[in-house]
């Protein structure tokens, strides 16, 4: 089970990179770091599918770090919201709805984003509306760590704490990098856990933020928390999946050259195969017991 998701995450990364190559643009570093978060939410947590996307009972996700829309396109395509082929044909092309940020003309996307620091207040509004109507849907807001420098995030953090929005779950893709350097050089937030706690939040720190099982458990625990919003701080690796881009600030929005593209696909495939081999070995070992 867990292996299936690991394999899926590598597949979705390959698709994401293919999307970037098709339109010659995108934010590959943050796509790779956020993939396990998105995949875990859409495939293991959220009550959302093309069938119930208009139901008031669906769970909501706001992609506040909207620049990583390519990862979202790959996940939504896999969920059946639109064909992957269509994304690759239209992404960033003239007049296409598959633009470089989420837009809600597309199925599966709730809100337009792209300007950082908007998602949390919007998520709070959705959570409040659900509460007014006595609904229990979860609301997820996915943010970048550089994004946390926006004051609006902390205005929202204050409000979510005060209104005790326990159905609200913020997720921070804590990859430690933004455009101009590390978050610690650009605008530091070392004591993130304490900061959120002091705003009245429950904090789930996930040290293996690219491990779907670890994330899944944190999201499960968050659902049990009453009277407080939860923030999942996912410690991820920017560019996760290929050594040529991991933790490299230049890969924030670098578009791979052909040679680099081949290398990335090779690395992702290799890691996927390693997962499959490991699980086979384990199964065989179990069979011999």
């Amino acid at each position, binding site marked *: 089970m867990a292996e299936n998701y690991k394999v899926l995450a590598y597949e979705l990364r390959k698709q994401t990179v293919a999307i970037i190559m098709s339109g010659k643009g995108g934010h590959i570093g943050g796509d790779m770091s956020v993939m396990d978060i998105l995949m875990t939410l859409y495939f293991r947590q959220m009550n959302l599918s093309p069938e119930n996307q208009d139901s008031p009972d669906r769970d909501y996700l706001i992609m506040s770090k909207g620049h990583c829309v390519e990862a979202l396109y790959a996940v939504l395509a896999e969920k059946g919201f639109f064909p992957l082929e269509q994304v690759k044909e239209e992404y960033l092309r*003239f007049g296409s709805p598959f633009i*470089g940020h989420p837009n809600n003309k597309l199925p599966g996307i709730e809100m337009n984003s792209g300007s950082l620091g908007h998602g949390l207040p919007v998520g709070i509004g959705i959570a409040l509306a659900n509460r007014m109507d006595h609904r229990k849907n979860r609301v997820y807001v996915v943010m970048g760590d550089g994004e946390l*420098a926006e004051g609006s995030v902390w205005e929202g953090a204050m409000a979510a704490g005060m209104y005790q929005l326990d159905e609200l779950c913020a997720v921070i893709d804590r990859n430690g990098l933004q455009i101009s350097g590390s978050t610690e050089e650009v605008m530091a937030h070392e004591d993130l856990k304490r900061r959120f706690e002091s705003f009245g939040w429950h904090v789930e720190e996930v040290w293996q933020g690219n491990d779907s099982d670890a994330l899944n458990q944190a999201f499960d625990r968050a659902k049990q928390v009453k009277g407080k919003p939860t923030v999942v701080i996912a410690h991820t690796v920017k560019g996760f999946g290929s050594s040529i881009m991991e933790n490299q600030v230049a890969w924030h929005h670098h578009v791979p050259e052909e040679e680099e593209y081949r290398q990335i696909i090779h690395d992702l495939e290799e890691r996927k195969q390693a997962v499959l081999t490991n699980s086979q070995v384990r199964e065989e070992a179990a069979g011999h017991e």
Partner: protein
Amino acid sequence: MNKIPNRAAICEVLMEQAANDRDIVVLCSDSRGSASLAPFAERYPEQFVEVGIAEQNLVGIAAGLAKGGKKVFAASPACFLSTRSYEQVKVDVAYSATNVTLIGISGGVSYGALGMSHHSAQDIAAISAIPNIRVYLPSDRHQTRCLIESLLKDSLPAYIRVGRNPVEDIYEEGSVPFVLNQATVLAEGKDAAILACGEMVAPALGASRLLAKEGISAAVLDMYSIKPIDKEAVLRAAGTCGLLVTVEEHSPYGGLGAAVSQIVAERGTARVIQLSLPDAPVITGNSQEVFDYYGLNKAGIAAKIRENVKR
């Protein structure tokens, strides 16, 4: 074709001047790369402030630095700088009259395929509506240089918008006919006058040359200063031509076309036709595709004049 974008010209001037002027301070909001200001940050780390992704903070801190005696240049994408930080611009920069020059980078539809969050089609309207701040859209790198050099000589607030891509040279290095706050007449004409700003000046010139071959004489004015606007130049053009065509990478509201129309409606006798982006989310694509779609190119401008000129 020139490879240096206007934003890089800004960095060049600031680097030169900062060597002798320790009061020049540059601020960025995780935007030094896209602003072409990374070389400045590297060479003058003590005259550079990084605020992270926080545009309101950027403008507030800029105003404070200016209050403390610094000559401040704050650079961030035009879409965020002009609207996210709007109140800081209004109160802390314009109202308090602090020596801050705001540099809106990647303006207009430079980030064409990224959608409306990243388009700045309202910045001229937004900033122009605030008293006590000037608004400039330079057309090429040489004029950009003159503008920055000139702004360094005074201490009044200003907003400058530049695009992301290098644009054709309009002027020759070292001989730019530049007077602060005055329009530059690039071509004389008697049938129509094209008034353009920023990246639209090049296609305006192109249109004028195209029309000349057909016997239509179209003047071209580089209206890089939108506020204050050169009223005399507008009225002179209106008087000679009777047909003014404004061209801008902006919404039809509150931009160059609107400003020109206001002047002409009061004192002039000419017809004003506005070419601009529509009052709708702009179609996405690279900026040339977007310009072509809305007729903001030399063929589109020429066609508009051909249709409307009285012969």
